[in-house]
């Protein structure tokens, strides 16, 4: 039976080689022998039988039996430069102060968004390779923009090569599921007051037949129009009335109310509505709009999700671009591939096939209906929320038939692959320890512990909608590539 992980976390990188004097050979003979055993269990047993403390590592070949990858990683373990860079990136991440500025039109504010460009979730992908829900959402976006009148024409335009596609993340934005953002759509604008960068996300449409699951029927398009014409300006008016909104305290509060801020946003959405309510009721908002907007938000337990994602994106973008850092700054899926980025490897995506999601399905659906893992929402886990904060939301673990204790175990497990606890987001069930944050690609590869992601499951066909929810894992192969790329940069 393994001993319990230390919690709160200490930084594992505390063992500086310069300073190993106290642990070195010269002193070894004066110390009690304490052994870490890697390999044959019998050897650990005989050490234990002789009264010496021993910890047996549950060892498996690295990277699925890739000895070269194992050696590449070994050369980066406890590297003082990488550790320092990670410390810096982590500090940038934790010191971020995302503030909701307002809602703007995507084409007006998103950096790098060309006219007639359509953004999507995950790493780059071309039209031909896109999954069903993403294609459907793009058709919907074309109809919404009025670039085509019929579904048929929209499909033809989408496939024509005239529409430039690009990842949301290349424009400092994130979008759940298909993550489709076209120039006329309203987006949340989040400013990181500490570092000055901004991040963006589209607005959540609710459940059922919605664009992010690929729907593009008139009801969906009409809703998008209403969101642009009524919801967005009303939100802006309300925000102006209440004078901006700091997002981290609200997220922290929601974590104490049973949300993990990915699959469960019920508390946070309620808190947001509560904060906005005085603004909706101010004299500048017509009564009819106030009612419609309140109803819309109240009817959607995931309304906060997109705002939370933009906040996470702003914090992680602040931590991106630190030379030598192995911390992960993005994890995103386009329904075909899962991609990650790390702070020290600039804009590169490290990709692997998107996994299936292990979860529970709504009535009438089975596994053959499920799309592969999809969406930018794993930005939550990248920021130490969602699957990493599962201890805050025991109900979520039931998606895979688990127990509250497993929720806690999952959070603890993620501590092993992260840089440290984020004290801004605390977990009551773990004695108010901070959420494990700053995924270190090195540690993922070393432990073969893939980051846990709580997520929704889309139907593989466009427009059917969400068919379930569950848990998936970020593929190890992405992290193996990231470690190798970092090693190459260090070597050159």
């Amino acid at each position, binding site marked *: 039976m393994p001993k319990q992980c230390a919690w709160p976390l200490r930084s594992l990188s505390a063992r500086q080689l310069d300073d190993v004097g106290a642990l*070195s050979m010269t002193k070894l003979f004066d110390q009690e022998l304490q052994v870490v055993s*890697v390999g044959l269990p019998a*050897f650990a047993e005989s050490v234990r039988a002789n009264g010496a403390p021993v910890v047996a590592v549950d060892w498996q070949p690295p990277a699925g039996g890739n000895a070269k990858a194992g050696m590449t990683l070994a050369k980066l*373990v406890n590297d003082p430069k990488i550790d320092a860079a990670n410390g810096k990136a982590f500090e940038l991440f934790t010191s971020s102060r995302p503030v909701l500025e307002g809602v703007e039109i995507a084409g007006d504010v998103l950096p790098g968004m060309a006219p007639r460009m359509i953004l999507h979730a995950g790493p780059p992908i071309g039209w031909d390779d896109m999954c069903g829900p993403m294609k459907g959402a793009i058709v919907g976006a074309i109809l919404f923009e009025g670039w085509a009148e019929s579904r048929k024409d929209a499909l033809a335009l989408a496939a024509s090569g005239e529409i430039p596609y690009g990842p949301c993340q290349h424009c400092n934005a994130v979008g759940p599921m298909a993550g489709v953002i076209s120039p006329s759509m309203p987006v949340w604008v989040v400013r990181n007051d500490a570092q000055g960068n901004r991040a963006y996300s589209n607005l959540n449409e609710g*459940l059922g037949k919605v664009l992010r699951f690929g729907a593009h029927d008139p009801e969906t398009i009409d809703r998008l129009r209403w969101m642009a014409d009524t919801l967005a300006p009303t939100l802006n008016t309300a925000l102006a009335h209440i004078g901006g909104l700091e997002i981290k305290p609200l997220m922290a509060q929601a974590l104490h109310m049973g949300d993990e801020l990915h699959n469960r946003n019920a508390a946070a959405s309620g808190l947001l509505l509560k904060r906005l309510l005085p603004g909706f009721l101010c004299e500048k908002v017509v009564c009819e709009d106030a009612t419609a907007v309140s109803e819309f938000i109240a009817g959607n337990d995931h309304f906060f999700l997109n705002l939370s994602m933009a906040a996470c994106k702003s914090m992680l973008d602040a931590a991106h671009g630190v030379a030598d850092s192995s911390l992960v700054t993005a994890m995103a899926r386009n329904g075909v591939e899962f991609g990650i980025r790390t702070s020290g490897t600039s804009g590169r995506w490290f990709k692997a096939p998107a996994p299936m999601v292990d979860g529970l399905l709504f009535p*009438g659906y089975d596994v053959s209906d499920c799309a592969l893992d999809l969406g930018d929402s794993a930005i939550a886990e990248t920021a130490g929320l969602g699957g990493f904060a599962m201890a805050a939301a025991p109900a979520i673990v039931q998606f895979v038939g688990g127990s509250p*204790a497993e929720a806690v175990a999952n959070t603890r497990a993620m501590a092993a692959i992260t840089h440290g606890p984020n004290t801004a987001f605390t977990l009551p069930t773990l004695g108010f320890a901070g959420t494990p944050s700053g995924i270190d690609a090195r540690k993922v590869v070393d432990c073969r512990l893939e980051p846990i992601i709580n997520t929704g499951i889309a139907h593989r066909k466009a427009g059917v909608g969400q068919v379930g929810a569950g848990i998936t894992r970020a593929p190890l192969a992405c992290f193996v590539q990231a470690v190798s790329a970092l090693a190459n940069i260090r070597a050159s």
Partner: protein
Amino acid sequence: MSDETTIVHKKFVDQYHDSVSLMQLSATLCKVPGVDEASAVMATEGNLKLIADAGLLSGIEPVPNELLVVIRGDADAVAEAMDIAEASLDRKVSGETGDNVELTPPRGIEMALDQMAEANLALISTPGEYAAAETLKALRLGLNAMVFSDNVDLADELMLKRFARDHDLLVMGPDCGTAIVNGVPLGFANFVRRGPIGVVAASGTGLQQVTCLIDRLGQGITQAIGTGGHDLDEHIGGITMLHGLRALEADDETKIIVLISKPPAPEIADHVVDVAARADKPTVVNFIGSQPMAKGVVEGRQHIHWARTLEDAATTAVALASGTEPDLELAAESVPAEAVDAARRLTTRQRYIRGLYSGGTFCFEALQILGTKLGTVYSNTPLREHCRLTNPWQSRGHTLIDLGDDEFTRGRPHPIIDHRLRNERLLEESADPDVGVILFDVVLGYGAHDDPVEEMVPVLWKAMGNADKVGRNVVFVASVCGTENDPQNLARQEAALRQAKVLLANSNAQAVRLAASVIERATVG
């Protein structure tokens, strides 16, 4: 049983359940054999629409606080599933909080350090191709390392040893079978009492032999550092042996140092002895089998004591530790009466010794000693190429077999752990009318077989019985490498072998000389 598909639904009033719990219940119900589809939902408008769309049920009035269970399948299955649903919904808050969920065991060295911050040594026994990376991780995290794994690339070994040296860390191995650090046996090692003698050895069984003999002679050790078999190779340059030597020099508890290796590259040997000579601690050196060269090496180096065999090394170290003169000659020449007696029982045809070794260094040492006494000795690991057996499974003349060599261990456990292969060979050799003496080793300690005599004694009796049927005797000569405190217990193992009429010597070298003298006396007549 009914083949007909039915749809049954049931409402539960005033039963609010979280949608996640209900999805879980639905999944459970779907798993009942014979159920096609099942759904448990709160009867909200949206949920009812989902159920209608799934073709399960329509026309139900929405009552948001009402729970609806709909099941489709064959009648018996539907009834069974509905019972499960009722039982499940009726369940009171139970103690099933899953508190016994196992926490993640450490999956890497760094993760292990989170549980043992003061760890100071990593014991690496992964397959060889991964061992260098794990060792490097350990060293980079400030851990000393013992690397049991073999088949590590020589370039990697050099890289690891340089890194360790530059950071004042000890790396024992790769291919280090045994070590004893701070009294704790690591890998295949014996429980040896503590004392003033420190050992550095590039040979696993060599280290075991020396430390066990020190224990048998009433002394003890501070540390027994294994270097791995390639350390004194010219490419590695004895980095670990030199580092271990310096560490023992610096260690106040260590009064006497013993260095053991198979013959090193000459310039490396010279360098090692040179470093040892500059220390002010008496150092006993046994580079197994390299003799005349040693005189030159030792000249003018008064701290260096040259030993001819592993046993000499132990005897000399113990004498130095006790302040007495080592009595090497007596050990070398004593032939017990039982050996003389045994020789008388052999026929003139029984001229040959067959040695069946589990310890590679014992076999090597035996080849050295026997070669000088009896001339040509064949082996699968010969000292000279012309003495190599063309077929290692077929002995000729005097033959000594290292059963731990690759050709015998591929796909099989090592003979120190598994005695079956040696037992078969022992029966074969004893049936050979030209064979007079069968010589073997028994290695005790952690990692070795739990009870070697239990495996061997019945086979010895069988071999003697077979020989007896054709009017012959076979003489068994052996040494047991172990201590009183080993899990197998030295005294018990030796007693059982004596009962089986095995002639026992305290050391391998003595056993070899004993075997030789039995054969010499027998052939002289």
